[in-house]
């Protein structure tokens, strides 16, 4: 299980303004996601970490123009696939969890219905079987009284619970090989954050799910991740195992980021 599931190769791109000017935002971004590992992509706002993730799924903003590079998933360049092929991959192979779960869920359908819909989309079958799976998924992400919760609407869920439901949808209903999470705990209370991170690491370890965690919080990275990719201003600055990055950071930016995260004065 040490192969690479996903490889980003020299990916560069720019944003096109309404007047046609190009502003380069990604410069030769390259990194790999090891199969079965929990990799963190860290960076501050504007580092481009989310943009690359959106590109993997083919849902990058329309104003983004690729200049060069490939995104290889099991050896296939995702950027060369047409929309139909990408749709087969989304959900079934690669799945994504976004930051604000309550906003990502459709407010007019019950949570259970939304999970069941996705189940049917991915696996087919009848409505009641799908609903059973939906409730089971909610149970597996430790949502108490899953049958009752499945009948509720997103606004009746707290932030943390909604995020669990999203994770249930993306990781359990969909059964992907690669799960990308874009700032899944930002904005949640710290106690809830901790719970969600435990859920994510459980799914990763127990299920052997290759996971990519995009975040700016080095605390959760230190505690949970195997590999780290550090990005700054559209470039990959450093990659390595989590232990190496935290104990022996090579790049000056990485060192400063670590120092700032620890609020240690006068750090190197």
């Amino acid at each position: 299980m040490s192969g690479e599931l996903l490889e980003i190769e020299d990916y560069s791109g720019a944003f096109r303004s309404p007047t046609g000017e190009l502003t380069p935002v990604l410069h030769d971004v390259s990194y790999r996601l090891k199969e079965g590992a929990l990799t963190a992509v860290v960076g501050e706002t504007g580092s481009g970490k989310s943009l690359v993730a959106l590109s993997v799924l083919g849902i990058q903003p329309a104003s983004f123009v690729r200049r060069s590079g490939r995104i290889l998933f099991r050896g296939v360049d995702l950027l060369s696939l047409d929309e139909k092929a990408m749709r087969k991959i989304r959900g079934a192979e690669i799945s994504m969890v976004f930051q604000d779960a309550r906003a990502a869920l459709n407010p007019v359908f019950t949570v259970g219905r939304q999970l069941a819909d996705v189940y049917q989309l991915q696996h087919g079958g009848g409505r009641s079987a799908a609903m059973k799976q939906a409730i089971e998924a909610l149970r597996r992400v430790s949502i108490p009284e899953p049958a009752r919760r499945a009948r509720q609407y997103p606004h009746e869920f707290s932030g943390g619970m909604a995020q669990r439901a999203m994770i249930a949808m993306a990781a359990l209903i969909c059964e992907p090989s690669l799960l990308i999470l874009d700032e899944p705990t930002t904005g949640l209370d710290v106690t809830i954050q901790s719970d969600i991170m435990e859920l994510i690491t459980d799914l990763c370890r127990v299920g052997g799910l290759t996971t990519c965690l995009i975040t700016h919080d080095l605390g959760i990275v230190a505690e949970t991740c195997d590999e780290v990719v550090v990005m700054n201003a559209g470039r990959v600055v450093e990659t390595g195992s989590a232990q190496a990055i935290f104990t022996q950071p090579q790049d000056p930016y990485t060192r400063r980021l670590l120092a700032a995260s620890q609020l240690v004065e006068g750090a190197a």
Partner: protein
Amino acid sequence: MSPRDAVGEISPELGLARPVRRRPKLSWSMRIGAGVLIFYVAVALISVVWTPYDPLTPGIGDGYDAPSWAFPLGTDRLGADMLSRLMAGARYNLGITLTAVAIAFCVGTTIGVIAGYYGGAIDTVALRAVEIFQAFPGLLFAMLVVQAVGAGIVNVILVMSFVGIPDYLRLARGEIHSRRSWQYAEAARMVGNPPWRVAFRHLLPNSIGPLLAFTSINAAFVALITASLGFLGLGLGPNTPEWGNMIARGQDGVMTGQWWVSFFPGLAILGLTGAFYLLGDAISDLTDPRRRR
């Protein structure tokens, strides 16, 4: 690391690049709309000092003269020159419209801002009043009130402004209400602004976009209603060269072939209303908050 040492290291904190302020591009709809409107205003102003003939005097021509060099737009049934009447009419239609819109804007926005910021009883009363007003269709309301208070240009202007006040009130109230708990509104209180200044000096300028955009829709509507009232013969005297009135007077001619008596006033109204709509489109694009200024 003191702030000064840390400056510029990790993020370009003190980036001193020249900030880019883009000028808004004037779209075609804006140019056409503004152009037409300026044209109308010019005609109205000119008509104060000069028209080819006296617009109010009949009998200059023989009556129902077709358009010719002497009378470029023909004469009406009584022989009065159409071009002169049309030019004079601009004063009425344009003047009433712009004045009424201005009044409605000021009064409606002010009440709306107060209602939106202070909330409570003022808000409830204002909203209910607006709802009652808006229960009546605009034209019907205008007709009833004009009949009740009597004819005269001042009355017409006031009635027209009332048609618009509820909408400005609602819009302003909504915008202010949604912004009043924003942090810069709180900060404005902390720096010493009394509540009314927070509402008018800080919140209102940031809410002006939708209000301005609505102004042109309101103006188009008022222009139409003014002409409608004139068409029905309400509000202004029978000989007033107001365009709606002129259309009404030319009705018989339409059937018997003297098309120009109703046509040109109608065209004038169409042009005015269209210009307002085009401007409205352009204004709402310009004030779109996503276009950073």
